[in-house]
């Protein structure tokens, strides 16, 4: 079974979830004796780094660092045909999910969205994935000959291996998406919640935009990303890109610290698979305590700075 992987990057580093896609799922595929092709677009130094992460060959399409879905789809489709790729994988990012769906439709494949497990039974791919915003999981048999899957971050392992193979470089010529007028880069370079290993998250309990400051400080000491509930986002205290939950990001970090978040169903949908959950809330009956591994009942404006201090001391 030959595998193709869409590898995303920010111009410097590869996205972790793309490397997880290369490592995790491709490994199962290569046990079924096949090659793994990495698809790289834009401009990044040392694309051959991917050869030690599980790629047997890198198709490097050089151009501006912009997402051009129609062009990417077309270029990948050609290789899916010429290299006889049956399994195509993207990491779960906005563009990864977009591209996966487009390729799936283009080649009439079966689709496995946001998978957390994967196996091959006979000649069929089976995937496990959350449905109903994580309130249930299904095992799904993908019936078509070609399949496209999207993997959830922090589930599959990045691999290190001896790099063999080559990088084939080509300039992107026809750019279909001239309608893309501008890309306003992020104002602040903050870690992305979907990739963070630790998340410090604030809700209505932080009381206002300044209320996020103690959380931001704690996040800095922990090298964590800053998350938020929808109540905090809707109040305009923090940007939507931080929102965790059903209409925000789905995250599964090693540690999720929920501060002043009640734990509504739609919030839990985005973070319930975190390995360890800490809740800080002044209401002992807040539902968040039902799923937290450790809870502290108290005022976050007292607890969070003390926690920062204590972690700083502990080094």
């Amino acid at each position, binding site marked *: 079974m030959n595998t193709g992987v869409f590898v995303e990057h*920010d111009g410097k580093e590869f*996205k972790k979830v793309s490397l997880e896609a290369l490592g995790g799922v491709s490994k199962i595929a290569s046990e079924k004796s096949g090659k793994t092709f990495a698809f790289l677009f834009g401009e990044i130094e040392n694309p051959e780094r991917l050869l030690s992460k599980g790629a047997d060959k890198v198709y490097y399409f050089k151009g501006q660092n912009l*997402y051009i879905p*129609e062009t990417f789809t077309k270029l990948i489709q050609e290789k899916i045909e010429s290299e006889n790729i049956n399994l195509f994988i993207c990491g779960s*990012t*906005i563009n990864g999910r*977009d591209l996966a*769906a*487009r390729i*799936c*439709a283009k080649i009439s494949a*079966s*689709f*496995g*969205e946001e998978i957390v497990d994967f196996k091959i039974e006979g000649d069929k791919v089976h995937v496990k994935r*959350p*449905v*109903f*915003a*994580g*309130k*249930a*999981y*299904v095992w799904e*048999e*993908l*019936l078509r000959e070609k399949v496209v899957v999207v993997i959830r971050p922090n589930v599959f392992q990045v691999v290190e291996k001896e790099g063999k193979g080559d990088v084939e470089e080509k300039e992107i010529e026809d750019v279909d998406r001239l309608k*893309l007028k*501008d*890309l*306003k880069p*992020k104002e602040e370079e903050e870690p*992305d919640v*979907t990739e963070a290993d*630790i998340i410090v998250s604030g809700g209505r309990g932080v009381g206002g935009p300044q209320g996020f400051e103690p959380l931001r400080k704690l996040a800095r000491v922990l090298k964590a990303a800053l998350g938020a509930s929808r109540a905090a986002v809707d109040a305009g205290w923090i940007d939507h890109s931080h929102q965790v939950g059903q209409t925000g990001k789905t995250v599964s970090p*090693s*540690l999720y610290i929920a501060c002043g978040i009640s734990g509504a*169903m*739609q919030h839990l*949908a985005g973070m*319930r*698979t975190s*390995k*360890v*959950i*800490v809740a800080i809330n002044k209401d*002992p009956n807040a539902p968040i*305590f*039902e*799923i937290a*591994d*450790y*809870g*502290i009942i*108290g005022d976050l404006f*007292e*607890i969070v700075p*003390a*926690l920062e201090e204590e*972690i700083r001391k502990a080094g």
Partner: protein
Amino acid sequence: MKIFVTVKRVPDTGVPLRVKSDRTGIDREGLPYVINPYDEYATEAALRIKEKIGDGEVIAVSCGTEDSIETIRHALAMGADRGVLLKVNDEITDSVQTADILSDYLKSENPDFILMGKKAVDYDRGLVPAYLSEKLGFPLETCVTNMEIKDSGFVLERETEYGVEIIEARSPLIISFEKAKFEPRFPSLRGVMMAKKKPVDVNEISNLPANSTNILSYEPPPERKKGKIIDLPFPDNVKELVKLLKEESKII
């Protein structure tokens, strides 16, 4: 101008769900249903296009059982002009089947716009917009977070991990909406009354297209053990927490 908006009936996300004991599905007994939340943004966007342009028709389409008429009525109560139900006997769980049914219908309707949600929050796929785009040969912009209507066309915003893309667009076009910067309107009482009189066509779908996936079993999510409340006075509770994170769960 013909503006189609696709709406799906989904279980209300604010209530718990149970997997049936034989693992063949979820227990739907007594479950409250709502319009797919992302489809509400799409409906709002459709109404804004019509209002700005000053003419045109907003048509709410749903594929589902008879019950989906309720969902169509919600869009009508918000202000859509009429509804179309592509009626099937049992709920479809395969997005490709749904996309085939929708595209068969839409291809003879000459839409200018098809506005959709980025995904249906039941089976959480986000596949139908791409399939429709492919089948109808319409360009597609997904996960749009804002829309501005200018005389020359539309300016869409799409937020990714790298920043905000600004996209100029014109019809024909399929747009799928993320939670947007604008809020969907609540149906007014008058809107609800009027919705009862607006026409809803029912098209029976007799031949189901082939499915692309087959759900083998359902599982409840992994149980989370209820953890401990660190019941110590401040600041000992904080010290204890750090100790537990270090020594018990070995995270920091």
